[in-house]
């Protein structure tokens, strides 16, 4: 397990050195999205009002931002679950020139494939610690605010050592959570035993599932 400090825009070498379980701190520009923006762009065919540069960082999240004295102020920040954006994973990597996606949880097989092809990784927070993060983020601006609303609009952040996040998908097809899942499966049987659930237990079917 190594720790890396990365600065956007990222190059192939930045990404290729990373392995699942490594920790990263992020600096430089990034932008945010949730479902509404991805549906708007990838399903409904609108174009982004800005062009993400080669090697961009995307954070799946919906921050709480308020306007105070004409300035945007970040109240709280926590990456949101990437699992539910799987259908747009490949499109976002290819069309938005991504080298790193930060989000809670992880992503699926098709995105993993796209990540191998385009040298991209997914990193995930292993804590819920907004206030170790908010000071590392400066808000640079927002697009499509009227169309998307405050949570779903793409915010532009400038990051200063934002992290740590753990690499849960590297660009070699590995996923950190696979090992945990395997361990949990092995422990499940022992847990059944502890709870007095017979190994051959089957539910009496009261209805079709």
């Amino acid at each position, binding site marked *: 397990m190594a720790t890396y400090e990365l600065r956007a825009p990222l190059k192939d070498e930045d990404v290729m050195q990373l392995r699942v379980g490594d920790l990263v701190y992020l600096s430089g520009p990034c932008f945010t999205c949730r479902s509404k923006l991805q549906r708007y762009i990838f399903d409904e065919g609108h174009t982004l009002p800005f062009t993400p540069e080669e090697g961009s960082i995307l954070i799946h999240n919906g921050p709480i931002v308020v306007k105070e004295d004409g300035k945007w102020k970040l109240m709280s920040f926590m990456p949101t679950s990437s699992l539910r954006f799987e259908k747009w994973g490949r499109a976002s990597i290819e069309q938005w020139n991504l080298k790193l996606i930060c989000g809670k949880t992880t992503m699926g097989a098709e995105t993993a494939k796209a990540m191998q092809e385009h040298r991209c990784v997914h990193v995930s927070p292993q*804590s*819920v610690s907004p206030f170790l993060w908010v000071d590392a983020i400066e808000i640079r601006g927002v697009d499509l605010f009227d169309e998307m609303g405050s949570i779903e609009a793409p915010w532009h952040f400038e990051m200063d050592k934002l992290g740590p996040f753990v690499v849960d998908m590297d660009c070699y097809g590995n996923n950190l959570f696979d090992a*945990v899942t395997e361990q949990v499966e092995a422990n499940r049987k022992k847990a059944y035993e502890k709870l007095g659930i017979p190994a051959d*237990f089957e539910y009496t079917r*009261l209805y079709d599932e």
Partner: protein
Amino acid sequence: MISINIIEEAAFQTIRRGATVISDDVRGAFARAIEAELSPIAKKGLEDTYKSMGLAELRDKPACPDTGWPIFYIKMGNEAQIEGGFMALEEAVRNAVRRATKAGYLRATMKHPLTGFDPGDNIGPNIPDFTYSFVPGDQMEITYVAKGGGSECFGGTRQRVVAFADGMAGIKKFVIDSFIASTKAGAICPPNILGVGVGGTANVAANLAKEAACLRKIGSHHPEPQIAQMEEELTDAINSLGVGIMGSGGRTSVLAVNIEYAYTHIAGIVCATSSNCMVARRATTRVLANGETVIMNDPDWFGGR
């Protein structure tokens, strides 16, 4: 008679406290989890989360930006008099939600389920949600719960009807299988407070599960020994799985398993689970008949069950 302005202010302060101040029982459970943890990634995750909880209170900001569904539990004294009645009470609470959203204590998270329309103030049909219970006295208590989307949307809330033929083994299997299925990659933000509802109709079981997850203090046990024992057995079994904080592996996967039950039909046992986020957010305020307000540490929702 309790003035409606006092109720609105009490509701606002309860929301503010609920979103920004994490209860002592939750923090205590974190301190114990940090002590017990062996995995370095998990230990750091627990420590960072614990630190951030403290900073949220200090800075008067939401401990997690997903302030979720706004849910209210109102324990009403049987002799309490509310200025304007119950409809005025609910309108006062809705006003408090609007104000709290504008002030940044709540994120504008509630939207139309089909059109996606965002009212911007977390108010809409059947939201916020109100649940009442009635107790002796002329006071009232209002509890606010921020029910986060992670723990609710990714399988942390489930239901199954277990046959009497399957009994205790069927109930326990449902609980542990539900937990495992929803916690991959940390989807429901473990370590959770896992609520289980057993018996009643489907909605009764689901409500009991949610109340067990969101309103019971960590460390409390069901007063009946058989249920208390189930709570302990399931807590130990789930913590032996190795899910850990955010699903990255570790010794603490649940902070507690709380079970509540209702009598059920001879044909089957409805079972439900509901998980609360590790950053479990709730706050309770008692409003006395003379308008004084008292901050309560424990919603004591099941007191006198």
